[in-house]
């Protein structure tokens, strides 16, 4: 491969302390280097904003429940169709696009790495099949352990090392990336149509509490030296008054890792509600943001909600059933033996609903009140809070008080007394946005070491050039220009190759999947543990030998090995 030279780029590269300077970026063989020889392909960035490729640290784009969302909603498919054109396949879907739809649209926005937020280990092969059809991003999969029987048994026995060993075996077997806990303990309860309300309740039969599951797995995670921390979807999502549960969950994680957080709380907007019912729901973003500000070991993502039509899909099965009872729309549920659950319903977030307006405000409040942008990342829990194509609008809302004020005019009467957003003057700057959409994600996910999220020599050449001159744009006033710029890059470069220009996809692409394999001592190899194997073959409906995902499912495979301290 000959090199690539990006000239006159206005670079913001937070991980390398570059806060905005015009420079050239040299690329060779897919990596950023000090220089390339003459003859390299040249892209003139013309002084436009140039950032590391975007990273989404929590999105739902591939796997069983995502595909079920498409399957059950032809109306959503019809709402976003494009024809086959050039190297692009036809696409369908608005809130849950087809894999190619997701890939092209993320690519046009400059996103080059994404983490699927929830993969059931038993159905991991499905997620990897869809990853393979998501050609323009590198992908990672959060792996669900919230209702894992062997893990819960280890937690009951307070056996951190055994819990770690089970996690290690499973992650390597299913080629997962990180530990995901969705409503920990609640999924097992949902197997009986029940739920846990907060972290101190007990899961029937297994006699463990969500708090114990979280505490043990946070420690197990560090014993395994995994790149990412435990990724937590707190208990009690979407319930008025749940903010205390959220803060209580933060208290379960000591500061164990100097390089990143010890606990990642996802889509916190859905977990920062005050009040006692839908009638008196109000924002508790302030105490939640304060709690984050006081705890460097915590990182959150916003889980911003945006008005309009979307689909909710989560491993929080009981929550989805409650939503169904509210909306009386169609409801799907999918419980996975010994592991987890999932639910899906379509929703419409309306400006005429006070509840929805409060939700909208909370996400923004969190991002504006968490002082350190490295601790609050930008995401919508796509598509739960809204489809990812809304990210540019969120960026603009965070950068422009004027835009927020305009939007506040349109909210349902009765909203203002329940939110603090109108009082917040803060306007985020370009650097904050670069942190919240790429550098912060790379740090939180622990993938800086493999060259993600920055533009220094040694970085993988994933680069987004936006049609925007920072020196000529006042985001506070020209927020519409900001939105337009972030919707469509001038160039998206992936692995050193231009893959999109002005939103047009240039190459078919090949997916790369990043996964982890903690190396454990022989006595902690669950593949050789007789009790584990016996129970596996007895209670699962697939044989243990048919469970692991074969290497051939990964078109390009990047395995991050670690030396577990067991």
């Amino acid at each position, binding site marked *: 491969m000959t090199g690539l030279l990006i000239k006159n780029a206005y670079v913001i590269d937070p991980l390398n302390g570059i806060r905005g300077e015009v420079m050239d970026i040299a690329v060779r063989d897919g990596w950023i280097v000090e220089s390339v020889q003459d003859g390299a392909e040249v892209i003139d960035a013309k002084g436009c904003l140039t950032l590391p490729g975007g990273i989404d640290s929590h999105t739902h784009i591939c796997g069983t429940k995502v595909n079920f969302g498409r399957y059950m909603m032809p109306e959503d498919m019809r709402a976003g169709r494009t024809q086959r054109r050039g190297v692009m396949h036809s696409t369908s879907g608005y809130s849950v696009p087809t894999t190619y739809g997701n890939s092209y649209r993320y690519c046009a926005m400059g996103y080059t790495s994404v983490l699927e937020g929830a993969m059931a280990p038993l159905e991991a092969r499905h997620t990897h099949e869809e990853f393979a059809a998501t050609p323009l991003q590198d992908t990672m999969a959060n792996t669900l352990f919230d209702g894992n029987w062997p893990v819960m048994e280890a937690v009951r026995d307070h056996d951190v090392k055994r819990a770690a060993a089970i996690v290690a075996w499973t992650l390597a077997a299913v080629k997962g990336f990180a530990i995901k806990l969705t409503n920990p303990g609640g999924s097992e309860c*949902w197997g009986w149509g029940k739920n846990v309300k907060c972290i101190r309740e007990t899961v029937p039969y297994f006699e463990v509490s969500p708090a114990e599951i979280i505490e043990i797995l946070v420690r197990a995670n560090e014993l395994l030296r995994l790149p990412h921390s435990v990724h937590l979807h707190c208990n009690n999502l979407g319930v008025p008054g749940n903010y205390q549960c959220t803060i209580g969950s933060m208290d379960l994680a000591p500061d164990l890792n100097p390089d990143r957080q010890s606990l990642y709380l996802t889509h916190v907007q859905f977990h920062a509600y005050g009040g006692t019912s839908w009638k008196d729901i109000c924002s508790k973003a302030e105490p939640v943001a304060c709690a984050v500000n006081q705890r460097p070991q915590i990182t959150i993502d916003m889980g911003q909600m945006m008005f309009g039509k979307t689909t909710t899909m989560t491993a929080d099965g009981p929550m989805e059933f409650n939503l169904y009872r509210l909306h009386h729309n169609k409801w799907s549920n999918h419980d996975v033996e010994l592991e987890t659950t999932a639910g899906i319903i379509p929703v419409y977030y309306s400006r005429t609903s006070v509840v929805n307006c409060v939700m909208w405000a909370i996400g923004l409040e969190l991002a504006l009140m968490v002082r350190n942008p490295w601790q609050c990342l930008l995401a919508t829990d796509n598509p739960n809070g809204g489809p990812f194509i809304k990210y540019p609008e969120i960026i603009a809302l965070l950068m422009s008080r004027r835009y927020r004020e305009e939007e506040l005019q349109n909210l349902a009467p009765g909203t203002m007394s329940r939110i603090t957003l109108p009082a917040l003057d803060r306007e985020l700057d370009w650097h904050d946005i670069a942190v919240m959409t790429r550098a912060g994600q790379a740090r939180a996910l622990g993938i800086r070491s493999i060259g993600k999220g920055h533009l220094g020599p040694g970085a993988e050449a994933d680069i987004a050039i936006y049609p925007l001159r920072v020196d000529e744009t006042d985001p506070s006033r020209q927020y519409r220009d900001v939105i337009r710029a972030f919707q469509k890059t001038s160039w998206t470069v992936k692995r050193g190759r231009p893959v999109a220009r002005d939103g047009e996809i240039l190459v078919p692409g090949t997916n790369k999947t990043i996964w982890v394999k903690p190396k454990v001592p022989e006595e902690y190899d669950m593949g050789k543990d007789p009790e584990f194997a016996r129970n596996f073959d007895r209670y699962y409906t697939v044989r243990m030998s048919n469970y692991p995902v074969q290497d051939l499912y990964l078109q390009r495979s990047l395995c991050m090995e670690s030396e577990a301290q067991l």
Partner: protein
Amino acid sequence: MIVRDVICPFCACLCDDLDVHVEEGRVTGVDNACDLGSHKFMTDHRMEGPVRRTASGWQDIPLEEAIRETAELLQAAERPLLYGWSGTCGEAQSAGVHLAERVGGIIDATTSVCHGPSILAIQEVGHPGCTLGQVKNRADVVVYWGCNPQHAHPRHLSRYTTYTDGFFVKNAFKERRLILADIRGTDSTNVADEVVRLQPGGDYAVLGALRAIVRGKGDVVPPEVAGVSREQLFRIADLCKKARYGAFFFGMGLTQTAGKYKNIRNAIELVDELNRHTKWTLTPMRGHFNVYGFNEVCTWMTGYPYAVDFSRGMAFYNPGETTAVDILARKECDMCLVVASDPAAHFPAEAVEHLASIPVVQLDPFPNLTTAFARIQIPVAVSGIDAEGTAYRMDGVPLRLRKVLDRGYPDDVTILSEIARRIGEGGGA
């Protein structure tokens, strides 16, 4: 040689505990499989090589020529139909969808004459489902409605329900109650604790009556509904509400009778209703081993589970219009590529007739009734026996089919990719 933990490529139970004995390139025995599965492994009536039908009879042709001619036929067609897909692996299905997109054709699977109506119902009201291990480990009440698992899915009861103990169901045969609803007596109704023998076409009414009772509106139920007594309906509703965990399975008895998807919708809404009282899940008894796989693959690629028409360059879906039986009966397609299925045996005669008037190419290991209409047939490896690949169980669990022997046949993926490559070279379409 014994290959262990082999996945059975017959029905969508995808039993994965078969031990297959292989000697000198032949399967000599199969342990753990049901009758249907064993037969599939042991049967050996494969077509030897590609054939072409001529005026004077069947003629052997080189593979190369068969592929070239197929590519030409697909490219020349205005409105090709690519049908079948349930008996092959996901990788071949994916190649098929790409091919359909490339030639602007219609792609449909056996789903449309199987659980297509279930999908239509799910698209109206959703699907409260689970993996089969949830049922095995938890269910104390199991309903089979309009299906005969003993014949169509012979190990379903012994692997997932009545005859298998689970974590929370230590003595399944005693602890699980089995309810069978059917219009006729079968080997399945014979083992049930409670048999609902309804009149043909009465499913919608009986399901509706059960919903009413579960909702507390039982007073509207007349003394008899479609042959089922009010007393039995109340007894069953009570059993369902008192279950710790209930599992509802259903088959063609609901999808193929009058009412079609409305029957399924009623069943789903009954299960939704029961979830307000206790835990219930519902699972369609998918037939072919990888019919669900086609729906999954087609959905992530096109947004729709089956019946996708690419003639507009984008995916267009309208069952009843873009489904295979309708396309054939309207004599709309001018070429048909059949992969891993046998429409001539399974479609109404009126639809089959059209196959005689258009070029048909079939990829199938065996001569079947569609062979009678094929201009060309290319015998391929059998997925799960001499070709590997991905298959999705009826509950969505994806498994990797094994290749237990090599017979020298090319697999579907190879042939389809080669056809696509030739069409790509020729440009156009």
